[in-house]
């Protein structure tokens, strides 16, 4: 197997004095969609934040296309093509939809055009003059994903994209995620909604109390109810 696009080796992350991630290793190949599952507080969000550079790991290495990025500030990591879509979405409420997108595209080496984004998310075209805070939860999530797409990110880190959304909206977003996967986007997704995540992932890791405890295919996980129950509580 050729080297992975994103390689994480034995990272240890802390919040203050509390040790959150213990020797976490995982890799995401080019054009691969990897799901990182686990219970609340398992360290999933911390893993994504560490990869993005929001939190510096105390030890371990993170490589993007072979280049070490651990310890770099988020803006440099973003410029190298990694993009976190945070759990809270972090839409700029005072900026319009279009301004949110233009801001995201500012430092992208090869940005998508607004038109291409709007073709992908027609709803955002309708709402392009609306302020970020006027958007519904689903529209905010679309915009959050669109900001990563307009940067043409090489790896997208999706943190709980379906959280707190109505089932109908989740179905829409799952369809969008599948489309992205089919387009060959490289994605590392963290999700509580296991069914939704498994529907577009190629490979799965399970995180438990800051340790990677399982790695395998969605099929293998689905066919092992005991495993699901032990680590995911379902």
């Amino acid at each position, binding site marked *: 197997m050729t080297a992975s696009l994103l390689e994480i080796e034995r990272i240890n992350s802390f919040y203050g004095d509390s040790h959150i991630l213990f020797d976490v290793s995982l890799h995401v190949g080019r054009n691969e969609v990897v799901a990182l599952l686990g219970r609340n507080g398992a360290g999933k969000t911390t893993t994504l934040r560490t990869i*993005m550079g929001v939190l510096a790991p105390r030890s371990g290495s993170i490589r993007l296309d072979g280049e070490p990025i651990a310890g770099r500030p988020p*803006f440099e990591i973003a410029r190298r093509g990694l993009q976190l879509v945070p759990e809270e979405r972090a839409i700029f409420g005072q900026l319009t939809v279009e*301004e949110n997108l233009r*801001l*995201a595209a*500012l430092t992208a080496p090869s940005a998508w055009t607004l038109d291409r984004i709007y073709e992908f998310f027609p709803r955002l075209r309708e709402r392009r003059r609306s302020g970020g805070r006027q958007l519904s939860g689903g529209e905010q999530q679309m915009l959050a994903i669109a900001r990563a797409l307009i*940067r043409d990110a090489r790896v997208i880190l999706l943190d709980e994209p379906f959280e707190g959304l109505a089932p109908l909206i989740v179905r829409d977003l799952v369809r969008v995620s599948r489309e992205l996967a089919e387009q060959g986007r490289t994605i590392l997704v963290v999700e509580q909604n296991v069914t939704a995540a498994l529907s577009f992932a190629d490979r799965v890791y399970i995180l438990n109390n800051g340790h990677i405890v399982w790695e395998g295919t969605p099929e293998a996980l689905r066919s092992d109810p005991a495993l699901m129950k032990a680590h995911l509580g379902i």
Partner: protein
Amino acid sequence: MPSAPLLLSQAFNGLALGTLLALVSSGLTIILGTLGVLNFAHGALFMLGAYAMYVVATATGSYVLAVVVGVALERGLVRLFYARPHEDQILVTFGAGIVFTEIARAIFGGNALTVPTPSWGQGIVHLGFLFYPTYRLQLIGIIAALLIALYLVLYRTSIGLVVRAGIEDARMVGILGINVRRAFLAVFVIGVVTAGVSGMLYAPIISVEPDMGSNFLVQAFVVIVIGGLGSFPGAVVGGIVAGEIIALTSAFNAAYSDVMLYAVMALLLVLRPQGLFGSEGRV
């Protein structure tokens, strides 16, 4: 009861003071909103602008000075305090303000100095219903133009986009690939320049003395509380409202002008704690 012409004239004075407060407060509020730093040196920077006007006759020379002071202050001092608690930031900017004030006192002495009205601003204009000093009228126009320029920078340029986004969530701006620290320097310099330029423009109207900034600093704080922390439209509207309150109250009894300003602020804090244009949440 004051006469109608007096009230009208005071209303114009209020507009002159108000636009000036708007400009001073815009800088203060943008720095607070993006950097999260309450810049207590802002009043002293205003004072330095006025002295610069006294020393350097040409305005171009003094703008350069304001930029130089701004860059030096951010790179040399304030930058080191972004991650520190607010108390530390207040202490360091307050301290910088005292140092600036005392440097001015050491160089120019404690006596009030007067700056002559520029040659193009001499005389009085007859507005038909009112005689009004030419320079004050020009002042309103110049500051209005500067506020419009600031508006265009904030709402029509990429740096403005970064600043407005940074006011809301500086961390997310960084996650989107933007070097927020570099944007912070630009914001700080823009803020300092507004203070310095305001001081220069106002120098011919008031007496220039080392402590002149402290009163403006307090009034600018009131303006951003009224307008909403971190809001540029809030600083503009808040500034004009504050200027009119001070000027119109003075027409009745000058001793009550500050009291009236605080009363309005207190009332607003009860009815709308986030200020006229503020949003709840991050400060």
